[in-house]
Each structure stands twice: as structure tokens, then as C-alpha cells.
């Protein structure tokens, strides 16, 4: 038994690694840029042009802090046209554009020099000083050639166009931007500092086109990065501030930069107690019900409970939840229970004893618990009934009856224990079901648990949080499987794990 357990726990490790890897892959393929999310700079579209060097620097530091300036994984697959240091490019759009350009043209050096030059062209807008241009562009009588507004508009337009060129690899779009900028620069001579750099980047672009070697993108390559990568640091820590998941550190939330650990544990507790309580209730109700209806097989009672249980089984959880809210937490019908939350913030006092807290929270717990419980209850009663009917047909039950044992003893002592087997095997399935169902139930009842957390972190693309919840849930689920295995051996002496 111990040996078996040790083996099972050893299998845990690769499975957990696979789950964390899956979660990690999902989180890095997410479209949102965490740095943009965390740095509370003005919204990206409007203020992209005016992004000062200071904000760029804070972003750079933030990237470093989050470990985003590192490669994602130990290695990456790509073609020989791909650049192996692309992860150093700060802006997510820029690095996507660079990747696409090098995919099309295959000559990384030329692509990067074109892109670099374009970046310089964009930065050279800082040389254009509004007042200076305004003063310089006056005709002989001192009348200004351009109004300040016009100058400002032109600079903004040029900046915007170059900025958008940094985010596209479509040759048609690039060509049209080139020609529109050409006309802009020929119309407004004061843009010459930018024009100079721009012309240079145009040359480099044509150079890139003429020297293209797109065959390179057809030759696969594996790039090895070593252990200095995001996944490694996420898992094992970087030896400095981050401790890594193996030491229980899940990193920081993108939303409020709080450590995920402090945010998550109270939530794990809420969800866990909900699913544990509901599984407990489900077993408490379904075992007697299953036994009784199997015992009274084909009577009216059995038929009615079978139908009710089947109906409940097919009822979607969110429908039940909303119906309960409609009926029992609705000012128009019955207002027996509160609509949302797990406590009343105006009354709740953290210094209460456990029982006071429980008494305060009980009304908040009832409706969600019913919703939680009913689905596993229906599932369990059906299985229990079939199991007991199966056991009643066995020889040893007939023997027990034949030797004159009372019905109560036959059922409780001989039938019950054996019919528990199937119901324990499904313990492992109920657990993930309860956790998965929590997303919907917690959203309906606004319970601040893991399910609601994963829902809101998905809406806010808070990926470290998603990965953390994912890994924890996977871990809990596997523990559920393990507990089921152990219970199985405890209940059935015929089963031994050797």
C-alpha cells in the first residue's frame, strides 16, 4: 500500500508539470500585453506617440521585474529565418511585426536594420520643437506660414504613420504608408530631420526586399535557451525575489500587483469548503435514498424518485441557481436569503468565533450549497441505486437472508458496504465536477471563490492568476483521485495495491 502510494505520488509530478506547462502555454499565447496593463500610462492608442522616455523606462523595468525580457521556454521551434533574440524586443506588437517580416524575407540582419532605422525615425520626432518651427517658418513680413495647430497636426500625423508602420508587415500597407509619408514630407519642409531618417529606412526597406531569402523560413531550427527562461523562473524561482511555484510562490497579479498567494488562499478555502460540504451533503442524501429505492424497487416510491432524480440530473446548474435566486431571493416573491456574497460587510466582524461566523454566513451559504449539491446528488443516487440492486442479486445476500438475519442487518451490514464501491470510485469524478461547476455557481451568487476569481481574471486577462488557479485545481483534483483510490482499498479488502 505504501509503495503504491509512493508510486502514485511520483506520477503526480509529471502530470502536475504537464498541467502547469499547459497553463503556461495558454498564458503566454494570450493577446494582452501585461506591461501595458500594469503600467498605468494613458491608454495606448491615444498616447502612443507621446510616450516619454520615462514611461518607456518604467516599462522596461517592469518587464525585467516580471521576467518578460527572457525567452519563454527552454527551447523554441522555428525556422532559420527566425531571430533567436526576439524576446528582447519590448513592445509585443513590434516583436510580432519583426517576426512576421523575418518570416517573409528571411534575412534577419536587413529586417532588423530596417526596423531599427524606422525606430530612429520615430524617435527623431523629438527633435521637432513646436515653437521653434513656428518661429522659423515666417515669411519676410513676419507672418507665420503655418499655424501652431497645423504644425502640431502634421507632426502627430507623421508620428502616427511611422508608429503604425512599426506594427505592420503587410507589403501593401507599408508601400501606401511610404507614399503618403513622402507627400507629407515634400509638403512640409520643416519635417526634414525626420525625413532624413525616414529616407534612410526606405532605402533599407528596399534593400531588404532585394536581398530577401524566403527559402530560409522553410528550414526548421531548434533554438536552445538554457535554464534562463520564463518557465524555469516561474517554476523554480530566479534565486532573488521570486521563489517559484515549487516553493509556493505564484508571482504577482497583473491587476493590482499583489502577490497571488495572499490573494488566492482565502478563495481556495471558500471554494474548497463549498465543494467539500456539497459532496458531503450529496453523499448523506443519496446513499440512503439510493438504498431505499433499490430496496423498494419497482414500487411507486422508486419510480417517482427515479424520475425526480433523472430530471434533476439533466437540469443545468445555472438554471437551478437562477431559479433559486428568482424564488427565494427576489423582492417580488420570497426574500428569504441574500442575493449575493458570503457575508454582510456592515455586520461581519473578523474577531467572531467560528460558530458566530458560521451562523452569520449560513443564510448566504444555503442557496449556493443547494445548487452545488443537487447535480452530484442526482448523479450519486442513480449510481447508488444501480449498485444496491446489483448487490441484492448476489448469493451472499440470499445466504444472509436464508440464515434468518433481520432485513435491517442484511441491508446495513451486507448490502451497504459492498454497494459503496461504485459510489467511491466516482468520488474522484465528483471533485473536479464540483470545482468546475464553481465557476458558474460562484458567478451567479457572486461568491468570492476560485471559480469567480478565474472568471474575473479571464475577463481582465490576469494570466498569472489563471495559471495559478489552474495548477492548484489540477493539484486538488489529483488529490481527489488519490483519496478515491485509498478509500477504495479501505472499503473493499479484496483490493490491495501491490
Amino acid at each position: 500500500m505504501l509503495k503504491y502510494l509512493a508510486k502514485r505520488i511520483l506520477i503526480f509530478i509529471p502530470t502536475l508539470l504537464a498541467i502547469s506547462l499547459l497553463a503556461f502555454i495558454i498564458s503566454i499565447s494570450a493577446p494582452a500585453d501585461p506591461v501595458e496593463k500594469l503600467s498605468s500610462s494613458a491608454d495606448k492608442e491615444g498616447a502612443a506617440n507621446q510616450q516619454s522616455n520615462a514611461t518607456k523606462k518604467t516599462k522596461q523595468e517592469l518587464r525585467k521585474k516580471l521576467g518578460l525580457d527572457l525567452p519563454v521556454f527552454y527551447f523554441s521551434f522555428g525556422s532559420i529565418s527566425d531571430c533567436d533574440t526576439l524576446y528582447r524586443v519590448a513592445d509585443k506588437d513590434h516583436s510580432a511585426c519583426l517576426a512576421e517580416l523575418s518570416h517573409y524575407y528571411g534575412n534577419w540582419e536587413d529586417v532588423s536594420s530596417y526596423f531599427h532605422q524606422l525606430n530612429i525615425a520615430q524617435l527623431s520626432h523629438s527633435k521637432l520643437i513646436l515653437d521653434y518651427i513656428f518661429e522659423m517658418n515666417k515669411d519676410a513680413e513676419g507672418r507665420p506660414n503655418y499655424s501652431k495647430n497645423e504644425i502640431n497636426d502634421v507632426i502627430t500625423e507623421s508620428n502616427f504613420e511611422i508608429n503604425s508602420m512599426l506594427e505592420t508587415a503587410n507589403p501593401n500597407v507599408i508601400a501606401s504608408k511610404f507614399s503618403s509619408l513622402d507627400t507629407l514630407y515634400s509638403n512640409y519642409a520643416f519635417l526634414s530631420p525626420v525625413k532624413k531618417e525616414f529616407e534612410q529606412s526606405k532605402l533599407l526597406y528596399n534593400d531588404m526586399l532585394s536581398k530577401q531569402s524566403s527559402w530560409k523560413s522553410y528550414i526548421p531550427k531548434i533554438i536552445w535557451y538554457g535554464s534562463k527562461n520564463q518557465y524555469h523562473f516561474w517554476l523554480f524561482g530566479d534565486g532573488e525575489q521570486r521563489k517559484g511555484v515549487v516553493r509556493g510562490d505564484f508571482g504577482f497579479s497583473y491587476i493590482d500587483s499583489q502577490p497571488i498567494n495572499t490573494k488566492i488562499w482565502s478563495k481556495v478555502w471558500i471554494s474548497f469548503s463549498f465543494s467539500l460540504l456539497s459532496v458531503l451533503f450529496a453523499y448523506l442524501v443519496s446513499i440512503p435514498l439510493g438504498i431505499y429505492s433499490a430496496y423498494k424497487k419497482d414500487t411507486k416510491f422508486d419510480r417517482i424518485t427515479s424520475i425526480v432524480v433523472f430530471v434533476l440530473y439533466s437540469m443545468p446548474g445555472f438554471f437551478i441557481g437562477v431559479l433559486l435566486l428568482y424564488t427565494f431571493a427576489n423582492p417580488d416573491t420570497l426574500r428569504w436569503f441574500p442575493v449575493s456574497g458570503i457575508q454582510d460587510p456592515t455586520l461581519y466582524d473578523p474577531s467572531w468565533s467560528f460558530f458566530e461566523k458560521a451562523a452569520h454566513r449560513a443564510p448566504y451559504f444555503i442557496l449556493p450549497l443547494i445548487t452545488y449539491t443537487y447535480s452530484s446528488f442526482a448523479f450519486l443516487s442513480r449510481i447508488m441505486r444501480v449498485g444496491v440492486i446489483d448487490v441484492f442479486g448476489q448469493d451472499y445476500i440470499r445466504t444472509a437472508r436464508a440464515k434468518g438475519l433481520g432485513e435491517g442487518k442484511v441491508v446495513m451490514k451486507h448490502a451497504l458496504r459492498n454497494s459503496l464501491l461504485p459510489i467511491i470510485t466516482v468520488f474522484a469524478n465528483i471533485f473536479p465536477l464540483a470545482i468546475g461547476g464553481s465557476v458558474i455557481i460562484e458567478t451567479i451568487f457572486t461568491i468570492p471563490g476560485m471559480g469567480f476569481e478565474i472568471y474575473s481574471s479571464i475577463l481582465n486577462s490576469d494570466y498569472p492568476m489563471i495559471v495559478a488557479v489552474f495548477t492548484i485545481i489540477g493539484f486538488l483534483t489529483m488529490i481527489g483521485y488519490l483519496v478515491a483510490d485509498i478509500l477504495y482499498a479501505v472499503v473493499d479488502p479484496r483490493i490491495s495495491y501491490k
Partner: protein
Amino acid sequence: MEQRDFSFKKYAWQQFKKNKPALISLYILIALVFIALFAPIIANDQPLYCKYKGEAFYPAFSTLVNPSKLDSVINPETGLAEVLQFDITDWRKLDLEKVMWAPIPYSPDKGDRYNREYVSPFDEQRYKNSDNEIVAIPNRLRHIMGTDNIGRDLASGLIHGTRISLLVGVLAMGIASIIGVFLGALAGFFGDRNLLMPRSKYYFTLLGVFMAFFYGFGVRKYTLANAFTSGNGIWELVISLILIAAIIVGMRLLSRVFKFGWLAKEVSVPIDSFVSRGIEILNSIPRLILIITISAIFVRSIWLIMVIIGLTSWTGIARFTRAEFLRIRELEYVQASKSLGYSNFRAIAKHALPNALAPVFVSIAFGVASAILIESSLSFLGIGVPDDVVTWGSLLNLGRQEFEAWWLVMFPGFAIFLTITIYNLIGEGLRDALDPRLKS
């Protein structure tokens, strides 16, 4: 005589027919399929047939073919042409000489501006007649199941939502069954020791899978992405898949050239371990959470949701198929086909598979029920499904936000419940009919 006619299919069908709830469910399912197929004719705000200024039109049918069809009529009094663009014309405003409305004269996505803000089916509903007066609605045009906040007709939404729900079942479970049956059959039939192949073939197949993904998806990723944004992504995806299959087959053929020495030695492929570990990992993550997370990072699209549900729901089917194949591979007829020298492929496809399918059908039926449940949960949460697509789940979600609107909860909820129930009942009926061992 009877003995000669006996076939398992016939026997199973007879058994199935004895199960009344399952049979009734099957009839309801057929009715639902009918509703789904003819949804644009059952619920449409354009007339099925109308006569306007002496000319006959069939707008509901014409817009099926060409959504923005244009037509014109000559006004006999003024002699001027009047242009009608079928999908934006308000047919109720026109002075139609003869008209035949759809049974439910509303489209799911267009709001009725005179019945906004949750109008109950029993409340007074308003209508603007051709004289521009707001009057009580004629019985023919009543919203029989009420409306939502922007005046969309609930009955119409439910009818069009049937399409999505049934499609989710078919498409998601189609994908899941293909993956599940394929992997389960391989794992069960060969186990860890019996899939033997020369090293050259083994390594070349692995290399082929890698190359296939590189050329099928890696090299073509921008082509695919551009195609998906411009709308014909499915074709490019099919090309990619064909490319992948071709490369793997090609590499396997190529491996024959290198069949010598060390490379020619046969080794066993632990296919069962691969598949079982994969199932274990996928089962350790609650499915709903996995699907929600994956669908959150992609573009919102109902098709994508179906594919994601399919790609994550194959484990149950694979487990059933694997268990059946484990049993069947020891049976005499499979052993016989082996000793007769038939290929493994033939033994699997012609001998083992037809006999393993019965329990798989059962798990597919239950799988459809849970796929529909997952889709409606997702649209209930508002994740993955675009805002303009009306599904049962999204309708129910509207009802959650407004406590007055009981009809927005009851009707969609009941529709979801009904569909799930009939699939579960059909699954039970199939299980009883297809598995004679349970009968005894």
C-alpha cells in the same frame, strides 16, 4: 426462419423501441432538428410571401440565398420605381395587398423598438400601425414569449438558438469521437507491446509529425491568420491538414529506404502509455475551466467554441473504446484475422471496430448532452460567444440580470433542460438496447 433474419441492428432497434421515454425523446429530437433546419422560415421578420403593388415576393426565401437582395417595384400611380432592399425593408410598414407571415414574425437579432425593456408575454404589447399610431398589438404579431431589454423576440431567439445547440452537439462530438475512437482503438488494440515497427519507421514517423506541424502550421501561420481574418480560413486550414497528412505519409514511405542494419530492427511503440497519460492529464483539469480559459484567449466565435469543446471532450470516448478493444483483441475472430495474415489496419477497421462501437455510441449520446451543457454555460457566462449571436445560454443570462423577466429564464432554461434530457434518455435507451449483457 426467424433465426436467419436476425441481425444485431434489428435486435437493438427493437429493444430501443420498447423503451418508451427513449423513443419519445428520439421523436422530440427529430422535431428539434426540423426546427433547427427550418428556423429562418419558422421565425423571420420578413414575410414568407407577399404581394406588393401587383408584384409577388418571397422575401424570407430570397434572403436565404442572397442576404442583401435588391428588388424594385414600379408605383402604378406615380410611375416611379421603388427600390426594396429585402433585409432592411420594414415589411410591416408597406401596404401589402396579400401577405403570409412566418409563424413567428420576428428575427432573433432585430429589436422591436415599441416593445423594449422586457415586455412580458401577457403584458400589453404595443405596435405602430401604417397610420403611425401606437396601438395594442394585433394578435398575429404578438411576442408570444415576450421580449428582452432591446425588444428582441424571445420565441424567435429560442428557435434560432436551436440551431446552435444542435450544431454544438454534432460538431463538437464529431471531432471528439474521431479523436477518441482513433486514439482509444490504437491504445486498446496494440497496448504497450504490440505496435511493432522497424526503428526507421518509428523515428521517421516522429520526425514526420514534427515536420508536418512545422510545414502545416509553422510556415503557414501568417497565411492562416490572414485567411481567418478575411473569412476563408477554413479552406486554408483544410490545405494545412492535407499537407500534414501528406508529409506524415511521405515520411513513412521514405523510411523504407533506410530499412537496414540497426534501423531495421523492430521496436514496440508504447502507444497505450502515451494515450493513457494524455487522458489522465486532460482529466485532471476540470473541463469547463479548461474550455473557458482557452476560449478566452481566442477571437470570440461560436465555431471556435465548438472546436474547443470537441478537442477537450474526447477522453471519455477514448476510454470506452480502449476498454472495448482490450476485450475484443483477445477474441477468436480477431486472433483468426491475425493468424490469417490480415493487416493490423484491416483487423481494426473491419473486425474490431464494428463490434466496439456500441458502448461508444452510448458515450457519444451522453457526450452530446454535456457538450450542449458546456456551450450554454459558456454563453451564459458570456465567454467566447459573440454578443450578436443569440443562444439559449445568452438569453438565460439576460434573464439573470433582470428579476422581473421570468420568461427570459423559464423558456431558455426549459429548452436547454429539454435538450439535455432527451439526449440523456436516448443515451440510456441506447445503452439498454446495445448492451445485451446489462439485460441479464
